[in-house]
């Protein structure tokens, strides 16, 4: 069987089911280990910030959660688009399985950002472009979940949700570039692929470990949710 045929073979929910179980188990174990390492680096090894003191340590969950909230939405929109274009059942199930975890990370990003904002900005919330667009992302996730739950016919629910997911994807670059396009209270990106990081190596290491842990956690729970959907639907 060549590589292309193998990919199509795994597009069948029945053949994907055992693979998802194996991958989910490995990802869950790796996520737990990386989270433990990330928390150790972030809470013990990383030095205290000269300006913000200890409260800056919220960064180790706030930034990875914010990255995951945007990344998961893009992956969800991708699977929704694949499902809409090729009418593949598994793609729609993947999109549906990602939404609750994406919504959770969006809420965590908003919640931790709010708790970080109070001691540093003097307020829990401000209608700033970054915060508002992230809130819109949460509403998009909740809208996607609610829309699919409100339609009894799964095929129609999948297609309706897919349209919403694809249209909503326009919000992700708005969130990312909001700090450049508008004058915002939220700081600019501390980590960029094109520039050197503006933080200590230990801080960056802890943040990347937590980001990797959240990423693997998302894969694990989404795959377990896909397995549930396969059992419920097929």
């Amino acid at each position: 069987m060549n590589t292309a045929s193998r990919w199509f073979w795994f597009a069948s929910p029945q053949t994907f089911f055992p693979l998802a179980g194996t991958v989910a188990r490995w990802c869950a174990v790796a996520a737990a280990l990386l989270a433990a390492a990330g928390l150790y680096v972030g809470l013990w090894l990383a030095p205290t910030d000269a300006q913000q003191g200890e409260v800056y340590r919220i960064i180790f969950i706030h930034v990875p959660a914010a990255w995951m909230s945007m990344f998961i939405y893009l992956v969800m929109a991708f699977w929704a688009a694949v499902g809409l274009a090729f009418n593949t059942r598994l793609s729609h199930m993947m999109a549906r399985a990602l939404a609750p975890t994406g919504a959770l990370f969006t809420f965590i990003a908003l919640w931790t950002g709010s708790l970080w904002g109070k001691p540093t900005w003097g307020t829990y919330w401000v209608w700033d472009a970054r915060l508002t667009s992230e809130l819109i992302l949460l509403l998009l996730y909740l809208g996607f979940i609610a829309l699919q739950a409100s339609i009894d016919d799964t095929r129609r629910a999948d297609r309706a949700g897919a349209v919403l997911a694809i249209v909503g994807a326009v919000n992700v670059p708005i969130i990312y570039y909001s700090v450049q396009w508008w004058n915002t209270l939220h700081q600019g990106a501390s980590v960029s692929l094109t520039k050197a990081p503006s933080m200590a190596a230990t801080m960056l290491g802890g943040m990347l470990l937590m980001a990797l842990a959240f990423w693997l956690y998302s894969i694990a729970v989404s795959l377990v949710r896909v397995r549930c959907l396969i059992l419920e639907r097929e």
Partner: protein
Amino acid sequence: MTAFYLWGAYGVTFVLLAAEIVFLARRVRHAQKADKVH
């Protein structure tokens, strides 16, 4: 107050992630039970 902000952030995050795992585990059990019935 620093402890309040830090525990508020870390505590709520890990409680929510744990809740997601618990709800998902319950869903897995229900789905497996329903699958056996069919």
